[in-house]
């Protein structure tokens, strides 16, 4: 995975530099659209944080944005995220006289998909900050691993994700750039029946990635 990301970063940097050398100097360009591929770190919040308290760097996000009018963009985000934590030895008692003591491991696997609207400030500059809102859903699997046993529940949800971020071109005329964004996500997803109850799972995400900008 690291090799893929490294290769992608070097490839884009080289391509961006070559292209910027070919163009005459000017004040830059206004993109018509751009695509992003980001590494996503998740910070669980609220009850979700009691299920898994660890921040998790296991996540990726693929997005596309299309300029509608000046700085206004519409697009999509597809992702993959996972949060996990080991809780050591714990004992569970059943009602039928059963009891199990084993290492307890919890994780949630998420596949978010959202439509996005955002407003870019200074979309023709090298650094273009934006405010956005994602509206969509998630497919989530909540797993409780008790040694060899895998107890899990799957749920779909509705989600809202306000986001602030910035598109940073590698050069005035480079079609490659970086993306840095931070968002808060509220969902209707919940965890029940896995020795834990959480409703309206919430989290924050830090996204750092690369973008390909189309004129």
């Amino acid at each position: 995975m690291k090799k893929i990301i490294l290769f992608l970063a070097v490839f884009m940097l080289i391509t961006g530099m070559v292209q910027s050398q070919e163009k005459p100097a000017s004040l830059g360009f206004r993109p018509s659209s751009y695509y992003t591929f980001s590494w996503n770190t998740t910070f669980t919040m609220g009850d979700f944080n009691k299920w898994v308290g660890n921040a998790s760097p296991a996540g990726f996000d693929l997005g596309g944005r299309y300029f509608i009018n000046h700085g206004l963009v519409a697009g999509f985000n597809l992702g993959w995220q996972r949060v996990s934590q080991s809780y050591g030895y714990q004992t569970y008692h059943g009602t039928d006289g059963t009891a199990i003591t084993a290492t307890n491991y919890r994780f949630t696997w998420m596949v978010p998909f959202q439509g996005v609207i955002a407003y870019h400030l200074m979309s023709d500059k090298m650094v273009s900050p934006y405010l956005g809102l994602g509206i969509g859903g998630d497919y989530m699997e909540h797993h409780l691993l008790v040694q060899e046993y895998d107890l899990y529940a799957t749920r779909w949800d509705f989600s809202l994700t306000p986001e602030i971020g910035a598109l940073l071109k590698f050069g005035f005329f480079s079609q490659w750039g970086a993306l840095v964004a931070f968002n808060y996500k509220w969902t209707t997803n919940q965890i029940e029946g896995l020795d834990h109850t959480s409703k309206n799972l919430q989290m924050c995400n830090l996204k750092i990635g690369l973008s390909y900008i189309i004129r």
Partner: protein
Amino acid sequence: MKTKLLTILAIGMIAMTSCSKYPPSSGRLTEDLAVYTKYDVTANFSDYKTFKVVPYVSYINGKDSTTLTDANAMALLNEVSKNMVSRGYTAVTGATKADLGLNVTAIKNTTTTVYSPGWYWGYPGYYPPSWWGYPGYGYGYPYYPTYISSYSTGTVLIDLVDLKKPVGNTVMVRWNAYIRGLLTGSHSQADVLKCVDQAFIQTPALVTTQK
């Protein structure tokens, strides 16, 4: 441009689909010891006052079975006895009849996976010991026993049977425990003995009061 766009999309999709749902560190869970217990919820453990422990550990490896009396086996049996005494039961020896019998079995590996009533833990040809004075008697389960689908990870089983009230030619199992994971990780004798203690700790109903 189209090629670059397809490239970033393809790499993105490959990266996402290549990511495993299960965290890599979750794979080591089976290396840890686990303690499973189940007891007969209809049993009143205060009805029983005395116990005997079979003085060896039955050992099953595939279709072969033998008995163990080495230091590790004795430590295991002593730990079981110690826990029974701490729960108020009195150990008896010799020809004295006991209310409860305990049998400890270690299983290294087997491909037999299905529990079948009448056969001890589903091992055709292997019978529980008749050491406590009921030769030819089989085990009966008043409840669906705790069991696992394979014993390839190293397992210690402890069965507590009712010698006070045999039903026909069957002694009923009132409590059973298994400790698994002995062969998948590196575990000391102390770790295993702690698991024996844990099996009793997680069964608070297994207690009696002496009168």
